[in-house]
């Protein structure tokens, strides 16, 4: 910055800016239809999922206090935390893959922020009208109509937000009980807090904050740009085709007058939920929702020019004038192939692991204070604590056996019953005649086997290693 001696005047400049409210204009088209399809899909799953039942209980229930997560036929215990990790890894890798291929797909179509903003905007349009009407309403003086329209909008928003908060809490506490509690105004303090908090977050983020969340609060938005490359599909304006832009009559040969395809109608700016002008190129605010593509294509239809002045394209394709086939072939580049391979590997591994998951968990804890004791008959005894967790939803009988030392045996009963989806601690004594077996003092590796017995037990068994100490 070369200012040298040319400082003529100085001005006060704020380092914080007043937010310019964005009034996105409603848009229809191929990509808007896709977004609405995803709104329906995600919201049906979210609002509906909590009401499903499975084997007489809620199908999807995350009981934090009981530390049990129910997902249809599966019950997850804290010991299954690896599956949560795997889920997060899969989610992260999917994000990498989708972002590398087609930019901020998540942001534009599936992110709750986008989805709820879309719903809230729809409500807003229904009550206050589209963009121009909303701008006019906001600028108008206070009137009965303004008050009525505004309060109706907020009432619907708040109702939607509360319903969202209620549904959210319904995943953590049985939703049918919660429903009754809500109607009798007897929800507990935490349930009340979370319903209101989640409701407030929905109302605030989708109603008021909107693009501010994406621009200033979302960390995701910022690191996604690190996953872009020159073959990533991004929403681009084709300046070569569009420029020089300018208004024109419909029936003239604008090319003969040296004009590009862009009629400078500003629709692409009006429909943008983050209020940017895509014609300035890729910007960090762009959430990749493709509303401008839909908007521009409508105008192109009217003007009789082909679609795609604004389109999904890549930097490479624009530069080298690649056709669609060439551009899409580059989807299969090393970067995305590696993501796909890792993702497929982890998904398959997680699937196999889930399918082979044994509904029984055993922890063996050797008593630490009492190392080994001699009991009647000259046998050496070690004491263990077996925590046996039955993750099925039926009561189960288990038989415990031990191996690793000749003639080692369990003193006392070696069978135990564990109730449905519960755990039981079983103190267990192991004995061996050290002298007869010629065991010198030291630690010997042994292995416990806990096996389900009885009807329908199948091949459920778990082996756990431990040591037996002779002194």
């Amino acid at each position, binding site marked *: 910055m070369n200012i040298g001696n040319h400082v*003529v005047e*100085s001005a006060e400049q704020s380092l*914080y800016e007043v937010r310019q409210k964005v009034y996105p204009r409603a848009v229809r088209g191929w990509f808007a239809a896709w977004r609405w399809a995803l709104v329906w899909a995600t919201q049906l799953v979210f609002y509906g999922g909590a009401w499903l039942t499975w084997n007489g209980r809620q199908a999807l229930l995350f009981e934090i206090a009981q530390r049990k997560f129910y997902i249809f036929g599966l019950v997850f215990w804290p010991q299954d935390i690896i599956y949560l990790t795997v889920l997060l890894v899969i989610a992260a890798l999917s994000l990498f893959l989708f972002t590398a291929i087609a930019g901020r797909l998540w942001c534009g179509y599936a992110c709750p922020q986008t989805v709820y903003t879309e719903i809230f905007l729809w409500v807003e349009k229904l009550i206050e009208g589209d963009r121009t009407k909303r701008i006019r309403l906001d600028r108008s003086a206070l009137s009965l109509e303004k008050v009525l329209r505004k309060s109706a909008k907020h009432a619907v928003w708040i109702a939607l937000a509360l319903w969202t908060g209620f549904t959210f809490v319904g995943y953590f506490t049985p939703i049918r009980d919660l429903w009754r509690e809500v109607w009798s105004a007897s929800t507990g303090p935490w349930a009340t807090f979370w319903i209101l908090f989640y409701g407030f977050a929905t109302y605030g983020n989708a109603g008021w904050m909107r693009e501010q969340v994406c621009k200033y609060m979302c960390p995701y938005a910022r690191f996604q740009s690190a996953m872009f490359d020159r073959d990533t599909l991004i929403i681009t304006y084709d300046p070569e085709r569009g420029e020089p832009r300018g208004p024109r009559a419909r029936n003239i040969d604008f090319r003969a007058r040296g004009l590009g395809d862009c009629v400078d109608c500003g629709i692409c700016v009006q429909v943008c939920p983050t209020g940017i002008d895509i014609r300035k190129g890729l910007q960090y605010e762009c959430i990749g929702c493709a509303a401008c593509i839909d908007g521009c294509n409508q105008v192109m239809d009217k003007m009789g020019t082909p679609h795609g002045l604004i389109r999904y394209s890549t930097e490479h394709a624009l530069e080298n004038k690649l056709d669609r086939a060439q551009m899409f072939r580059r989807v299969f580049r090393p970067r995305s192939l590696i993501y796909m391979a890792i993702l497929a590997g982890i998904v398959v591994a997680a699937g196999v692991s889930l399918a082979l998951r044994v509904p029984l968990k055993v922890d063996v804890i050797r008593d630490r204070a009492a190392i080994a004791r001699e009991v009647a008959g000259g046998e050496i005894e070690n004491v263990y604590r077996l925590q046996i967790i039955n993750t099925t939803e039926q009561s189960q009988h288990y038989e415990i056996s031990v191996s690793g030392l000749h003639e080692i045996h369990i003193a006392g009963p070696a069978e135990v019953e564990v109730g449905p989806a519960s755990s039981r601690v079983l103190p267990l004594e192991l004995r061996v005649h050290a002298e007869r077996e010629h065991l010198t003092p030291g630690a010997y590796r042994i292995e416990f086997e806990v096996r389900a017995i009885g009807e329908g037990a199948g091949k459920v068994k778990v082996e756990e290693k431990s040591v037996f100490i002779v002194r």
Partner: protein
Amino acid sequence: MSQFSSSFWDFYIAVITLVSVVACGVFLKMQSVRKVAGGTTETTGHTWDEDLGEYNNPLPRWWMWLFYITIVFSLVYLVLYPGLGSWKGLLGWSEVGQLKQENARAEALYGPIYDKFAAQDVVALAKSPDALAIGQKLFLNNCAQCHASDGGGSRGFPNLTDNDWLYGGAPTTIEQTITNGRNGVMPPWGPVLGAEGVKDVAHYVMSLSGGAADSIRVARGRETYAKICIACHGPEAKGNPALGAPNLGDKTWLYGGGEPTIVETVTKGRNGHMPAWKDILGPAKIHLLAAYVYSLSHR
């Protein structure tokens, strides 16, 4: 730590805290606007590597208000909670107070579960699976460290699964043992008896439970026993539950029944210590524990 008894340091901390909080606000205010040269408002004015400028991408105004809110929050917090030197805060909150509150809440929540069993006697509870399930958890959390997970004990810590009791195995006695604890003292006799004398007594003790022993030493040991050991262990060596003196005539040994161990016991004495649990567990839990312990030897 004399410097901490002076109120100067309370004052010192309070001033530093307040000045820091206020300074954050002043700094924020100072950094909200800046003077720029005319016509150069596009960049922040920072230049690196000769010609690298940085665009001014201002944060939204509401974000700045969040900063101010944190300052207001911290001032309100410092008034309500202890944070400024010795200022106790208007809410009267303290760590100890919160612990007490949480304990009271837990007591209100879980107390009824234990109280349900308080009215039943130990023998009946020892047959109730519900009571035993809770009793086992209490035992594993509090007792198993010494008495082992199965209650079988270990060297120096009595086996609770047999019918041999140091202080008696009646339900009320067990409850009393847990409540008040026990101190079993065997005095050291080495200095009094001398090495040979101790060995004689050891052989006599071994003979009481039918162990192999030197008959000459046994005869000499018997005389010593009748003079000294009899006071606690009794004329028939059956022990004394009032003192916790063990029965020497059976095959149950607290520290071991081999000659070297008995010699060591007599020479150096023993100190058995069972802690008192009344302040830690309270009567309701002790009642359940007693039932569990009772059940171990009455299966």
